[in-house]
């Protein structure tokens, strides 16, 4: 377990900023308790200072996980967000997409969001923007990237993809062994 280097922090922050924009400051500078980012076996954990200090005394091979896993670094140095970060991303998300009840299950099985399943979308969402996907009762289901801006979606046919799937809560079951 170690703090991120500047290069790594930059990669993580740019990825997170794609979803929550300037609200990222609220993750770094928290009112309740100091939190920090820690890297352990290529995974990035968002952890409170107190539990980070406790886990210092655990040897590296024995430490399985700590805090909330935000994602992992690939071997090429890219950062991939995990679904476990959803809670933190969803509460600060800048752009949101709500999907209808009939689109929930396809999304949770790892499919993209089609226009037919789109319930609501934040106004003025640009294309290729990170968005958080909710169901109609405001429960966060996952996140993805928009394929078109909000204005452009009006012209599309119902089978067109609106949001590219990136992570969904179904991964808790599908990728249980590699997720945390």
């Amino acid at each position, binding site marked *: 377990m170690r*703090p991120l280097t500047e290069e790594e922090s*930059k990669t993580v*922050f740019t990825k997170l900023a794609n979803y929550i924009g300037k609200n990222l400051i609220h993750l*770094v500078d928290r009112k309740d308790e*100091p939190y920090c980012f820690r890297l352990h076996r290529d995974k990035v954990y968002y952890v409170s200072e107190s539990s980070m200090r406790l886990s*210092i005394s655990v040897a590296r091979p024995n430490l399985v996980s700590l805090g909330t896993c935000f994602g992992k670094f690939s071997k090429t140095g890219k950062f991939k967000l995990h679904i476990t970060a959803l809670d933190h991303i969803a509460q600060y998300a800048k752009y949101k997409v709500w999907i209808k009840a009939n689109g929930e299950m396809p999304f949770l099985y790892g499919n993209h969001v089609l226009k037919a399943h789109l319930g609501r979308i934040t106004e003025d969402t*640009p294309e290729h*923007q990170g968005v958080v996907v909710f169901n109609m009762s405001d429960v966060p289901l996952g996140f993805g990237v928009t394929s078109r801006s909000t204005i452009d979606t009006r012209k599309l046919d119902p089978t067109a993809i609106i949001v590219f799937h990136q992570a969904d809560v179904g991964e808790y079951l599908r990728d249980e062994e590699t997720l945390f």
Partner: protein
Amino acid sequence: MDVSNLLASHAAKFQSVTVEKETPLDVDAGFLTVTDLNPIDEESYRSNLEEYLQSTARDGTQALIAALYALPTQLSPDGPLAQLPPPTTALPRAKPLPKPKAPTKWELFAAAKGIQKQHREKKIWDEEKQEWVNRWGRDGKNKEKEEQWINEVKANAAVDFDPVQATRNARKARVAKNERQKLQNIARSQAVREERSERKIEIERTLASTRTSTASMGRFDKKLEGDKKMRGVKRKFDPTEASAEQEKQASLALLSKLDGEAKRRSKDTGGDNVLNVRKAIRSVSRGKGGVALGRDAGRGGAKGKRGGKR
């Protein structure tokens, strides 16, 4: 009345103040040190070690304190202070001896030719003044020619020949030459040192690359005796247990830096990230580009308007 008894008991009480040893103790008051050079009394040393050590230490301390009281004192608000003499014990030096200076070019030449160095007095006898004057510097003998009131000039000298200026220029040139030679000597001595360290680094680098230049990248090679293990550059990370406050400040600084970068980028593309300007221009100008759009707008916005309705 017999006072001899009283005197004897009194003396017994203060007998221990004086320390009598076979070899007198070596007291160095400057370092507050006492050295006992007497051989160890083996019998008492074996029978009662603690007592023997204590008595030796007590004798030494007693001798030191007696020496301190014998020193001249100085009054101070905290009571009298003994003025310690300079220490007599020679301590070994902490730093290694300075390296000998590299010989100058003249010193090398003189050594090769067997020229002995002669001491040159700073003062020189002036026959006219009948006194010792400086060889150089203030009122120096070397400035004699410049300061005399009359100068000899050769018959074939130029019209504007200034004998005072000429001798002065010659003297200044000698000084400049000496300075130049001094700098050259310094440069030569440094070059030798730099060359050696550079050569060492180069050899180490060559050795490292040859050791990894085999088919197995040096993995299954025969190890030579005394071969050191090769070490690469070690990665360095921040300590895990640094304060979270410090880390937060670093993260916030990084965020503001990223924010600034994003702002600059959006300024370059000319707009916020909600509107894709490049795509908007392409769409409005029907794929002809911004220049064509500007030309059309100059002619009258009819075409552009129709294009927008598409």
